[in-house]
């Protein structure tokens, strides 16, 4: 108990294995007789395919097969679905387009899959791939979402006029307009939320095996939950029952949203494995990962805040153009709409919010969820806009936020965009952050920096995130014959340390030592349903399922103990892992009881199996929130930016494991600083080529690029789940981009630079400084 207590910084149970090179990731699995697949991808952003010749490729020694879109069509293989129904403002449905697994006569972005080569080795497959002759008839391409909406823009899909996927709205437009009409002041801002390449260190991979006798596939692949894949690839793609697929998720080297979805390569390996009767593996190389993993963000947004004469926020109005890429990924349209706009009111008392979101096709890699998925984009807009409003009104930016925050006494708080916040003490969290950061001591630090020729800036953001994901979750507790307690979960760790937190919870509830608890995940055959991991849902969803299951186990245990101890069930109490007769010292511990019941059943006697599965309904979101504070040093001669001080004051509710929470926040902040300062996804506007297609061109933050990140946890328990927890996985990525950009603009404003878009690369900063009207 003591070594696995709740609210303790318990060291992660996953660690020794992963530290010794004993992690087992998808590409580490090398079954005998496996074939290797290589995908041939389009070098054009837009083209018609007028011919494909594979004869020479098939002659390469070791090549087993070459498949094209025509083969898939012949065999009736379906395309990849988009799972988001959506109604436009005018009542019509969003555009729907096919998403073929291999090109159907046209390609629509660089990297679009055209053929699949399967061979004894990767080298042979690559040699063969080079011998496939494909005739492309190049077309004009468009990569910028605003350009795609222009009347003369090339059409990504001939049937989708204006490249417009959807035109969606939320909020009370009339009320918002009325509040704007009576406002004392309106401030506006147009910002670009830059496209981000997810770039998990482990690239995607898939290993498919097919058993002809049972007609079943086993697909081992790095996912964030295999159930979503199984439920699509069976019925939608191969037109068989979902249960014909067993999806196994081994260790996963990071996902950040991107590994949630069904991809073409899942289908291709399964298709080839059935055709060829051998295991077929595809492992993405890094260059193709840049072109075939979904990207994140990529919005151009205009926002306006209406304020009254006292600087109180009346209403918020936004128009967002969201780049969907060339196809609609599983959840693509969901991200900027349902997911993103839900937090637009953030922690402030807006009387009304109205948002219009337009989705756009471009000849680029499809866009879908990336850590935060729409919520970072909304928070970025609101927090940049508030700094802009403070500047326009001449009110201190901390004071302006303070003046407009919703108070704890107003909880539960219903927002104009339909969310109900259960809890939050925003002023307290803000004040804790300001003190920890030494916000007040900034002037002295700025003077020191100025003496070295540097511009120092400080910035803050107050973020609010609404966690999401599947609306239920399952847990199953089984007492194994070897004396361990196995907990089968429907979430999927991709590095978050879930196993440790679940062990802590189970150990606490069942009163067993944590070393006796094993977490089982990632096999759709042994776990029938699961919501996977996404939207920072895992601990509060799976945690509730574990609590419900443990409660049933204990109820069953009381019945079994009453039989064993020959006492009335009402006289049996459970505490600290032991069932006992109230008022006596007679009792039995839970592991002994469970083993005895198993033995009784085995020996044909009566017994009560304690093993239990429960599904918990997860009908309330959690609303983690907090204050991010950043200090940046700008070198005005080079435009180089260094983040020199970073503090997070975070309310993620009760922290089951503060060590893991801090690690999650660090990671989110690293990714947020990455987006704000380093990560620039650039497509050539004419050719549609991804110019930033490697780690030499696309700058992921490195160790030397980031400051220490000080995370202070201010616990305001969530009122809608029994654990009091709020989802912590995405929070760091939500709060950090606006804090950093506000700090950069604070530094640059003294030189007349008042607007800058992410990423604030040295070239951009330097150019902005050169272009600015010099302060006299």
């Amino acid at each position: 108990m003591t070594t696995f207590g709740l609210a303790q910084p318990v060291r992660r149970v996953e660690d020794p294995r992963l530290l010794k090179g004993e992690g087992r990731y998808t590409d580490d699995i090398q079954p005998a007789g496996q074939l290797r697949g290589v995908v041939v991808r389009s070098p054009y952003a837009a083209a018609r395919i007028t011919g494909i010749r594979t004869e020479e490729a098939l002659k390469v020694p070791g090549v087993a097969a070459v498949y094209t879109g025509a083969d898939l069509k012949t065999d009736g293989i379906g395309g990849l679905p988009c799972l988001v129904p959506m109604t436009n403002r005018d009542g019509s449905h969003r555009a729907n387009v096919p998403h073929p697994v291999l090109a159907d006569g046209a390609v629509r972005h660089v990297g679009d899959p055209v053929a699949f080569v399967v061979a004894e080795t990767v080298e042979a497959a690559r040699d063969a791939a080079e011998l496939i002759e494909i005739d492309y008839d190049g077309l004009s391409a468009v990569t910028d979402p605003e350009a795609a909406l222009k009347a003369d823009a090339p059409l990504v899909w001939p049937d989708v006029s204006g490249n417009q996927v959807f035109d969606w709205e939320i909020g009370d437009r009339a009320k918002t307009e009325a509040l704007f009409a009576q406002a004392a002041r309106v401030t506006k801002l147009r910002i670009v939320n830059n496209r981000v390449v997810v770039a998990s260190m482990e690239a995607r991979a898939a290993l498919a095996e097919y058993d002809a006798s049972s007609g079943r596939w086993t697909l081992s692949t790095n996912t964030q939950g295999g159930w979503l894949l199984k439920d699509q690839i069976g019925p939608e793609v191969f037109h068989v029952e979902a249960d014909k697929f067993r999806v196994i998720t081994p260790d996963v080297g990071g996902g950040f949203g991107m590994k949630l979805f069904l991809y073409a390569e899942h289908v291709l390996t399964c298709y080839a494995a059935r055709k060829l009767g051998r295991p077929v593996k595809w492992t993405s190389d890094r260059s193709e990962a840049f072109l075939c993993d979904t990207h994140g963000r990529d919005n151009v947004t205009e926002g306006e805040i209406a304020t009254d004469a006292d600087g109180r926020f009346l209403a918020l109005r936004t128009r967002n153009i969201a780049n969907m890429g060339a196809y609609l990924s599983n959840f693509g349209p969901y991200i900027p709409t349902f997911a993103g706009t839900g937090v637009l009111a953030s922690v402030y008392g807006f009387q009304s919010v109205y948002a219009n979101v337009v989705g756009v096709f471009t000849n680029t890699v499809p866009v879908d969820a990336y850590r935060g998925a729409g919520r970072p984009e909304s928070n970025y807009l609101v927090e940049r806009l508030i700094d802009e409003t403070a500047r326009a009104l001449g009110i201190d930016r901390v004071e302006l936020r303070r003046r407009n925050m919703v108070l704890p006494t107003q909880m539960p708080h219903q927002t104009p965009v339909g969310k109900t916040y259960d809890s939050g003490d925003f002023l307290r969290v803000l004040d804790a952050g300001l003190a920890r950061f030494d916000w007040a001591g900034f002037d002295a630090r700025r003077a020191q920096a100025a003496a070295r020729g540097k511009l120092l800036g400080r910035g803050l953001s107050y973020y609010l995130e609404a966690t999401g994901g599947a609306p239920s979750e399952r847990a199953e507790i089984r007492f194994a014959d070897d004396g361990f307690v196995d907990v089968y979960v429907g979430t999927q760790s991709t590095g978050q340390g879930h196993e440790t937190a679940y062990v802590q919870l189970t150990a606490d509830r069942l009163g067993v030592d944590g070393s006796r608890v094993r977490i089982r995940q990632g096999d759709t055959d042994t776990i029938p349903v699961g919501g996977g991991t996404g939207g920072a849902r895992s601990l509060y969803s799976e945690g509730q399922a574990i609590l419900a299951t443990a409660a049933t186990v204990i109820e069953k245990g009381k019945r079994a103990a009453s039989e064993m101890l020959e006492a009335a069930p009402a006289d049996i109490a459970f505490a600290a892992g032991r069932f006992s007769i109230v008022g006596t010292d007679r009792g039995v511990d839970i592991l002994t009881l469970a083993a005895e019941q198993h033995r009784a059943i085995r020996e044909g006697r009566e017994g009560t199996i304690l093993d239990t599965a429960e599904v918990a309904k997860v009908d309330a979101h959690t609303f983690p929130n907090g204050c991010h504070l950043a200090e940046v040093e700008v070198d005005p001669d080079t435009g180089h930016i260094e983040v020199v001080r970073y503090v997070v004051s975070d309310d993620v509710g009760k922290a089951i494991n503060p060590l893991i929470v801090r690690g999650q926040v660090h990671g989110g902040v690293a990714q947020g600083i990455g987006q704000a300062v380093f990560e620039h996804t650039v497509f050539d506007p004419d050719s549609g080529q991804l110019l930033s297609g490697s780690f030499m061109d696309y700058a992921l933050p490195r160790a030397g690029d980031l400051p220490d990140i000080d995370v202070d946890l201010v616990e305001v328990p969530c009122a809608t789940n029994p654990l009091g927890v709020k989802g912590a996985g995405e929070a760091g990525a939500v709060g950090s981009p606006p804090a950093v950009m506000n700090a950069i603009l604070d530094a640059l404003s003294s030189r007349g630079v008042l607007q800058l878009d992410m990423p604030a690369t040295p070239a951009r900063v330097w150019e902005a400084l050169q272009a600015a009207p010099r302060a006299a």
Partner: protein
Amino acid sequence: MGTEASAAGVFSAAVRPVTLSVNGADRELRIAPWTTLLDGLREYLGLTGTKKGCDHGQCGACTVLVDGVRINSCLTLAVMHEGATIRTIEGIGAEGALHPLQQAFIDHDAFQCGYCTPGQICSATGLIAEGRARTPEEIRELMSGNLCRCGAYPNIVAAIEHAMRVAETAP
């Protein structure tokens, strides 16, 4: 033990032998000369602890120690290292016991998904042996060849700093 790995599936006459001392054992491979050290370890010796993050020397996930020096194993060919002593993540720490650096990674929560971790640990082992880094800033700079998308850098630096102190005070 001197396991001979086969070159199954290599459709070239240019297969040649190379002997490496890997984690204390001589291993003979028969491989095509263009096989990288990384592929040699992963595909031919079954040592999958070393990871392929980019195959272009840009991420550091494949870092191993060759004659004690850290190196990107994706950027060097196996045949170039005839007779060399190779140490991979599987050779760090003793049977049943963690290396102090591995323990420090646990104590400081210095990783999340674990994919870059073998490279980080091999790189840090090399760094400590080099004796060049003295401050956290120097550790950051000299570890900047190892990417971590989970963003565990603050804790990685703390873990390495801790292990460095332990190594200094060791008898």
